[in-house]
């Protein structure tokens, strides 16, 4: 913790870290300073003038959002003078804002409504003024209604800071307006529909396109969970009413806006839980056709088969299942079925050690980010939250080096791009580091003796040497070589494509004998070729394969959607989605995050762990579901880096785009995300 400052706010003594602004400091003491344009974590812009407070010794009121705490400062947040100004501001805004709180969906969480209530303003004392701007509703995601806009600029700032840069102000004075370039509708503006603007809008100017009539905010139950659709594993807040998801917002667990982001998939993909491809009951292939059977019959049948197959059974799982499911699976396979054939899709692009050795890191503490072989992009929808997090870090404090054999979306923001072979580039950098006053162990230097360096690599090395907290984020394939940089300084992380790749491996779902490739008979990604090494193949989760591998006698698919693989299965078991399960996961930064169940599992579907426990029972064994402390222990393995080999290990030839699309195919095809594909906007 940094230096602490003591001050008084409304007579109350408050201790706050030096450098904190008054709004946040007051919040520590439970005092709310009204504001309409402030966004935690971003610089105060002083636009709304609601946060004006009086400070003893100063003549004029000052804005709390842009004033830092000072030792012995005495702040008064509710003086007559500032309350008068606030009342005036709300009065002015109300004169141009629809007074339809009775039907407005934002009612109850609307900041303007809250302050109007505080001041007892039923309506404005000024005459009503209205512009008739058209409503932008040309897309199924975000509805933009300028009539409600109070011009606080939050959406503009969020959109700009995250680099999407679609919104800005146009016009002056009273005719100011938030627009896209050339005032085109969002779907013609380059918008990715991530909906960050919805999350920050204090009123109802930006809302989910289908938000109306879905319910009032106070009717919703909220669930703090995690999106499991890609390697970013973003925090989400799921709002439900009845047993239906009404909307998903970026999670509120992280107080700073820096990591407060979810993408279009995370926000709008939830409809797949009730989508047309959902598996609602167990099915068994009879006479070439999959036919519904009872869960009891299916599991009894399967228990017998597993017993018989024993060592010839193979378990393949996706790397987006929860820790608890993964650990149960690992125990089930080893202790009950007694096979060592277990692996996850993570092994398609990473070796277990690469994910295990990936370090814990804090992105918002990094002053230099080095991206090795990863190309996150909001626009190609590959790891969009990482793209946003990097852009936000850069806009606050931080520099970027990209190392990639191809052009990346972040190249333009990087001070140095090392194009060409990633491994050679990192080696060249390491070789140059000692020239910039940093000692590098001979053990490591020996590995890079042969490397050649160029001016760019030297500059990158200089920047690396000069940074105090570098963070190296690499594609798992380059993690070994990239981790050598972190061996000198900073932290290194492997960035997987799937949300819980790290967790799944840490929970023990990793190859001990036959690999995923062996069991699924795939090469270089998802190309299916050759014969499987197992007789009974048990696929857990929406495994993105399209056909039953040759050589497999009996295929069990335990998933939530009819994937290509499920269609070819001999038995299909309905699994709960992440929105229907509780548990935990480990995100790319190494944080263990809890996943909260938002809705009941659909149909007869059950969590993976429940199915395994029942199967074990049927097989005459007892299988214990892991406790949170067991999971925590497994996830918290301390990582000590050592000098790693310098060569590329994996041959994963799927592009991140195609792999993620295959992985999320059910979500993309059975939710409004389909619109993206249909309008050619993926």
């Amino acid at each position, binding site marked *: 913790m940094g230096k602490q400052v003591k001050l008084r706010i409304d007579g109350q003594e408050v201790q706050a870290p030096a450098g904190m602004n008054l709004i946040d400091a007051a919040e520590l003491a439970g005092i709310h300073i009204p504001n309409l344009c402030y966004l935690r974590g971003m610089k*105060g*812009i*002083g*636009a*709304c*003038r609601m946060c*004006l407070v009086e400070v003893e010794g100063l003549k*004029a*009121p000052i*804005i709390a959002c*842009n004033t830092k705490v000072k030792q012995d400062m005495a702040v008064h947040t509710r003086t007559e*003078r500032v309350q*008068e*100004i606030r009342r*005036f*501001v709300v009065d*002015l*805004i109300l*004169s*141009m804002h629809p007074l339809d709180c009775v039907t407005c969906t934002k009612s109850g969480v609307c900041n303007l409504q809250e302050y109007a209530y505080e001041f007892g303003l039923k309506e404005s004392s*000024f*005459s009503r*003024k209205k512009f008739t701007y058209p409503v932008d509703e040309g897309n199924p995601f975000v509805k933009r209604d300028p009539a409600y806009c*109070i*011009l606080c*600029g939050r959406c503009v700032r969020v959109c700009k800071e995250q680099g999407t840069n679609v919104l*800005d*102000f146009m*016009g*002056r*004075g*009273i*005719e*100011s307006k938030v627009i896209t370039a050339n005032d085109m509708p969002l779907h013609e503006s380059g918008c990715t529909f991530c909906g960050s603007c919805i999350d920050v809008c204090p009123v109802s100017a930006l809302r989910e396109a289908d938000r109306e009539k879905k319910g009032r905010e106070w009717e919703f139950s909220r669930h703090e969970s995690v999106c499991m659709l890609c390697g970013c594993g973003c925090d989400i807040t799921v709002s439900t009413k009845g047993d239906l998801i009404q909307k998903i917002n970026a999670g509120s667990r992280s107080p700073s806006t820096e990591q407060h982001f979810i993408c279009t998939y995370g926000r709008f993909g939830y409809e797949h839980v009730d989508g047309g491809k959902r598996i609602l009951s167990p099915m068994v292939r009879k006479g070439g056709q999959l036919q519904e059977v009872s869960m009891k019959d299916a599991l009894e049948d399967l228990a017998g088969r597993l017993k018989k197959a024993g060592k010839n059974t193979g378990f393949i799982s996706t790397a987006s299942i929860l820790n608890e499911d993964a650990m149960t699976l690992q125990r089930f396979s080893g202790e009950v079925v007694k096979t060592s054939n277990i692996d996850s899709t993570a092994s398609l692009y990473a070796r277990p050690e690469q994910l295990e050795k990936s370090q814990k890191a804090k992105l918002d503490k990094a002053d230099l980010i080095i991206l090795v072989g990863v190309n996150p992009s909001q626009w190609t929808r590959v790891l969009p939250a990482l793209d946003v997090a990097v852009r936000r870090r850069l806009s606050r404090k931080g520099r970027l080096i990209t190392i990639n054999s191809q052009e990346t979306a972040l190249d333009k923001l990087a001070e140095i791009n090392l194009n060409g072979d990633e491994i050679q580039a990192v080696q060249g950098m390491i070789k140059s580091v000692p020239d910039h006053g940093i000692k590098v162990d001979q053990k490591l230097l020996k590995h890079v003796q042969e490397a050649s360096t160029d001016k760019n690599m030297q500059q990158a090395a200089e920047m690396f040497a000069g940074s105090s907290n570098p963070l190296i984020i690499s594609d798992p394939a380059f993690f070994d070589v990239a981790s050598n940089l972190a061996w000198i300084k900073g932290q290194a992380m492997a960035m997987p494509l799937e949300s819980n790749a790290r967790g799944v491996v840490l929970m023990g779902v990793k190859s001990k004998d036959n690999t995923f490739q062996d069991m699924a008979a795939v090469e270089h990604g998802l190309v299916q070729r050759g014969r499987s090494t197992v007789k009974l193949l048990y696929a857990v989760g929406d495994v993105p394969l399209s056909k039953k591998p040759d050589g497999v006698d009996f295929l069990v698919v335990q998933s939530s959607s009819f994937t290509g693989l499920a269609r070819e299965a001999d038995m299909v078991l309905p699994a709960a989605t992440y929105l229907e399960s509780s548990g935990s996961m480990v995100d790319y930064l190494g944080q263990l995050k809890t996943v909260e169940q938002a809705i009941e599992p659909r149909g007869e579907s059950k969590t993976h762990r429940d199915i395994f426990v029942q199967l074990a029972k049927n097989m005459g064994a007892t299988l214990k579901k892991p406790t949170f402390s067991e999971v925590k222990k497994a996830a918290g393995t301390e990582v000590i880096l050592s000098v790693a080999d310098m060569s590329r290990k994996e041959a994963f030839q799927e592009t991140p785009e195609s792999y993620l699309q295959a992985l999320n195919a059910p979500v993309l095809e059975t939710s409004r995300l389909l619109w993206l594909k249909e309008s050619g906007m993926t």
Partner: protein
Amino acid sequence: MPAMNLQDLQSIREANRHRVEFTRNTCLMLCGGTGCRSTGSLEIKEALQKEITTRGIQDSVDVVETGCNGFCARGPILVVQPHDIFYHNLTLQDIPELVQEQLVNNTPLQRLQYKDPVSKQILPRQQDIPFFAHQLPWVLRNRGIIDPESIDQYIARDGYFAAARALLEMTPGDILQQMHKSGLRGRGGAGFPVHLKWKYASEEKSPVKYVVCNADEGDPGAFMDRSILEANPHSVLEGMLIAARTVNAGHGFIYCRTEYPLALERVQTAIDRAREYGLLGSDILGSGFQFDLEIYQGAGAFVCGEETALMRSIEGGRGMPRPRPPFPAQKGLWDRPTVLNNVETLANVPLIILEGGDWYAGVGTEHSKGTKVFALSGDVRNIGLVEVPMGTSLCSIIYDIGGGIPGKRKFKAVQLGGPSGGCVPAEYLDLPVDYEAISRAGAIMGSGGMIVMDQRTCMVDMARFFMDFVQEESCGKCTPCREGTMRILEILDRIRAGDGVIQDLWELEDLSATIRDSSLCGLGQTAPNPVLSTLKYFPKEYEDHIRNKKCPAKKCTALVKFRVNADKCTSCGLCHKNCPSGAVHWKKKQPAEIDPQKCIKCMLCLDNCMFDAID
């Protein structure tokens, strides 16, 4: 030309001295400022040259296009040097006769000379004309003397010798000391001490710093900065160079509005010449100091004159102010320490370095030192650019220099400081030009706009004009300025339309006070000033509009009905002739009559009536 040193500079000065002291040829100093150009001075220049060539005297006569002479009301203006003979209101037809008389016959052409409006005497020499005689041209010291496009002539007037001293003989501390002694305060409006700004920026530790010149002059009726840039661009460059040396900045920007094409052209020429002479660039005058600058053209948003919005605009963003602190001196352009001064402020700097801070502080009042340039306009005889010592009374500026109010009309008020300023009524005419004194009177010094108003000005209408301006130019960022100014405008419109109620006055005061206290930047904080000052000095006029539904100045057309006073009407028919809408019925030998249905209240009848017969 290779990089210069001090000796080179000195020899240029010697070689060109004759051109600014007019010791060789007769020089026809023709004003080429924007004002005179608009009345045809460029054609006159051509005609002069042609005429001179025809008469074969081109070797002994030079035609020089100068920057703004200042007496804009009388343009085009020609001053014949070295005799200082002043000609005004020239037309193309005058040129042959003028050349013949003045240059060939050596007798002044009296009909084009200045005649004192009171004594009716001809005042041949420029320096004897009251408009000039009461001025103290420091910033405008080179007006009418040099060709603004000639760096040599600027050097001949000791140009760049202040920079040379600052670079070669003085430490930044020395410069700051002289600036401190001079008491120079920002001429952009707020009057912040220049030496403090520079000191703060010089104390910042940053490898990159900037010097920015604010030439985004946007007040209605103001043209001081434009004229300085047009007439003496190098003085601004030199000021920036000295500022850069003081704070150790390497790069500068002149933020000038696109609507000033001539100023932009002349500044660009000045920058090019200075670069050629090595007065910008690396190792300036052999000092090892490096500084260069460029022009950034603003698109004419008034708010971009606010320093943080200006910097945002240079950075390529939308010109919107941001809260301070941090101040530009700490975190300015691209978050680097930045010195930001306006044109006139910077043009003062070389003089201070050359003559010393003490000398500079010898003129002025206790807290306002040196001189101030004003753009005198409105209902005054001598519209133009004037520079007076601080402490000069408004009365002296308006009457001695400005020649008073034309016609028999009475002085009503003078508006100072543009949209951020206020009106000063007749009782305050003794007010000296001094930051604090003007501010106490409810106006601000501002950048130098001075609009004189006579009895025909309606103060409600005037306040509305500025309010309309401000609400259109509000950037829209902060709520009070964006929506509050619009609300003030609504009330003023209501009052002007005759729909005002007395509560409106209280509401105006309330609104104004709250907007002033709660707005983000200077634009919003000062926006209500025109309303507040007119409410303060002319409450009766507002009440007349509201209670009696009358506009005493006959400006608010909704409140005015035009009627012919039959007692005064001489049936001359002028009103009938001038009425564009056929509303005046007139027959010979009968008083005219105005049809209120047809009248469009254009006031042409009123303006044209010679017998004051229209009520």
